């Protein structure tokens, strides 16, 4: 009897008092907020202020270094955007590029990751060498590829026409509109597949190997093991990789800028935005384009997260 009374009394005392300021947990919370406040302030200043400024500017007709006074034009920039053939075409080009590159990068990256995951001699150096394309700055490799694609002195034409006799005459890979997008997709795939392979490799290494032994014992074929074991367990890594790559591809700028410049039929969303903001100094319209790009990318992110939902247990 008395023991129970004692323990309940102790328990009663141990329960935190509602609304009290003295509890340790609450004091820790306050301290946490106080310590985080400076960092949060910096983030707000550096990230949110320009963001809101861009959104605010998109409702005006601001121009850089212009003597004309800035006036509010409401939604005019956005309605212009909806009828702007150039912008709509750039969305199509960007999405086409994204689908092409993400699909190929994912397939090739997965294959490479699985190969590099297995044990063989020289695996270490292989993993290091694999990352070289990713390590070269995009601008440098884009210029390099542009020269390789050249229709007079390019090495690709030389190999295909003169050495391997696969083609009968040189092709202008970059200039011909029919081969432009595949050509630049090849550059991006070459550059980014190692990155995808790396992310997937990280996911593969977390999968324990004994489940494969158990599957062998149960008589599962390699294909079944891949479909039933590897892929499901790899889902979080696949989700991360796909989101990364899709977002990067949707925002692509540097490789297109170096290889095509402001050619009308190969403008991506980012190049279109840059053209309006920097070349035309049109901050109002450029801001509207930036917000529109943000929305387009947002749609993709929501789609991904919805369809590839990973339950958190």
């Amino acid at each position, binding site marked *: 009897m008395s023991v129970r009374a004692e323990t309940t009394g102790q328990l009663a005392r141990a329960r935190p008092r509602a609304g009290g300021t003295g509890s340790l947990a609450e004091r820790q919370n306050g301290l946490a907020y106080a310590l985080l406040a400076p960092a949060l302030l910096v983030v707000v200043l550096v990230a949110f202020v320009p963001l809101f400024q861009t959104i605010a500017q998109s409702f005006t007709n601001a*121009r*850089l*270094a*212009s*003597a004309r006074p800035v006036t509010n034009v409401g939604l005019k920039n956005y309605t212009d955007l909806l009828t702007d053939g150039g912008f709509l075409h750039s969305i199509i080009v960007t999405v086409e590029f994204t689908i092409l590159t993400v699909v190929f990068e994912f397939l090739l990256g997965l294959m490479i990751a699985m190969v590099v995951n297995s044990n063989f001699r020289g695996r270490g150096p292989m993993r290091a060498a694999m990352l070289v394309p990713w390590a070269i*700055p995009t*601008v*440098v490799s*884009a*210029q390099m590829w542009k*020269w390789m694609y*050249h*229709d*007079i*002195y390019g090495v690709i034409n030389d190999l295909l*026409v003169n050495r391997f006799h696969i083609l009968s*005459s*040189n*092709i*202008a*890979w*970059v*200039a*011909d*509109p029919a081969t432009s997008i595949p050509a630049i997709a090849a550059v991006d795939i070459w550059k980014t597949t190692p990155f995808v392979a790396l992310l997937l490799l990280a996911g593969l290494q977390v999968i324990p190997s004994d489940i494969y032994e158990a599957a062998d014992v149960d008589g599962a074929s390699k294909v079944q093991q891949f479909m039933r074991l590897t892929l499901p367990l790899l889902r979080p890594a696949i989700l991360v990789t796909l989101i990364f790559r899709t977002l990067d591809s949707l925002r692509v700028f*540097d490789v297109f*800028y*170096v290889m*095509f*410049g*402001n*050619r*009308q*039929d190969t403008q991506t969303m980012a190049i279109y935005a*840059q*053209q309006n903001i*920097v*070349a*035309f*100094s049109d901050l109002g319209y450029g801001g509207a384009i930036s917000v529109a790009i943000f929305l387009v990318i947002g749609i993709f992110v929501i789609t991904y997260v919805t369809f590839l939902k990973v339950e958190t247990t």
Partner: protein
Amino acid sequence: MDLEQRADRRGFSRRAFVLGALSATTASVLAACAQPSSQPATSAPAAAQPTPAATKPAAAASPAAAASPAASPAAAPAASPAASAVAKPAASPAVAAASPAASPSAVAGGAPAFTINNPPPVASADQAKQFASQQVSYYGDSVGLGHDIDTALSNRFTQDTGIKINLVPKPASATDTFAQYQRFFQGQSPDLDVLMIDVIWPGSLAPNLVDLNPKLGDAAKQHYPNIIDNNTINGALVGMPWFGDFGMLFYRKDLLQKYNIAAPPKTWDELEQQATTITNGEKGANANFAGFVFQGNAYEGLTCNALEWLASTGGGTFMDESGQVTINNPQAAAILNKVRGWIGTIAPRGVTGYQEDESLNAFNGGNAAFLRSWPYVWGVVTKPDSVINGKVDVAPLPASQGQPVGTVGGWQLGVSKYSKSQDAAIEFVRYLTSPDVQAYRAVVGAYVPTIQSVASRADVLQIEPFLQNLQNVQRVVRPSKQTGDRYNEASTAIFQGVNQVLNGQDAAQVLPGVQQRLQRLAG
């Protein structure tokens, strides 16, 4: 005991590793930093480099900052400031000035021999000395030969007048430079006094620049009137010509000889015929041989090319003096369709993706008979290690109607309105744009002068012999004055339209659209 010893040894080897890595990094960083400074030193007089050849591509193609292979990050979109947005990889070849400045010391005719470290004295020194207390910030040429020349001139100026010059090399890319200027002017910054201005910028930068007419109007009369007119916005002269580029035709004189062609083409039809003859003859030996290469990519350089095509065949100049859009006319459509017909026949299919460096590389490798480009090419193709050294000559671009034309490139010098030392700045500009200094820059850096008397000097002609046979080329300017700060949009409309035609569309269908876009900007 054993564990401790092992821990100690691990600790020791870890420390050793960190020390080793740090020292290796520091050493390599120091070594890398030491590089650039050593280059100019070694580039000093390329000893006995006889004759004109020595000059390098310093004469930056204006809009077309060629992306020289060695040069700056391809990222820098070239040309035109705004237009710059038009991507052109990089910057003026001036950056690639690893090439030593040739300084021909012996000049026939008794004119003073110019060497890079010996610029001419300041003629107006007495006038300038009264402002000796002021300091001038000069946003000058990019790192390389241009910067070296600027340094020599600034030092001489300070020596003769006492005015201190703070020399800042501008970014290699024209686009970046324009963006930089816009920020300076947006903030009305006094940090900028004298600045280099591309030939297409006066229209958009004019509100922020000082009118140089009162003090330099007389000196301006010596320069080519077209350029002065281009730099005069609403009656105010906002830029003094610094050096002039214009489009010209480089050709392989050995090939012309081989196929018994007496002279370079005078009309576009002749060009087509000569190119066809040479290509048919050379194709057997070199399957990649192209008759005619130019800059056909969708960027500012194409606007320059297209202007030459139109102006030389009666097709107008995109817009007339008053701002009326004239691009949609039958002659323009005809010449554009003619050029479209060349692609795949005398011009390689890839030419619609070429900028300055691609076209130059094709020509310099011996794979083309004709090249349309800027004066800086001369310095490249006359280098001893060039495959075609000694086989190249220069002619005016063909013209089917009237005088041969060339689009004006080149840069000017302006003074910022927000400068706190305008008087000293103007005196500095007076010195830099004087005939003596123009001759010095022509001889030492192969920059094309903008003063007729300088262009006829013996020592200048020795470095740039092509100036002789290109004297009657009419300089045509792009419509930057009429379009003001909307020039980039106008140029974009033009080059995107022309690029579409070159890629296969009918000019008669594309030009009305371009006309419409331009009209929306003008009105």
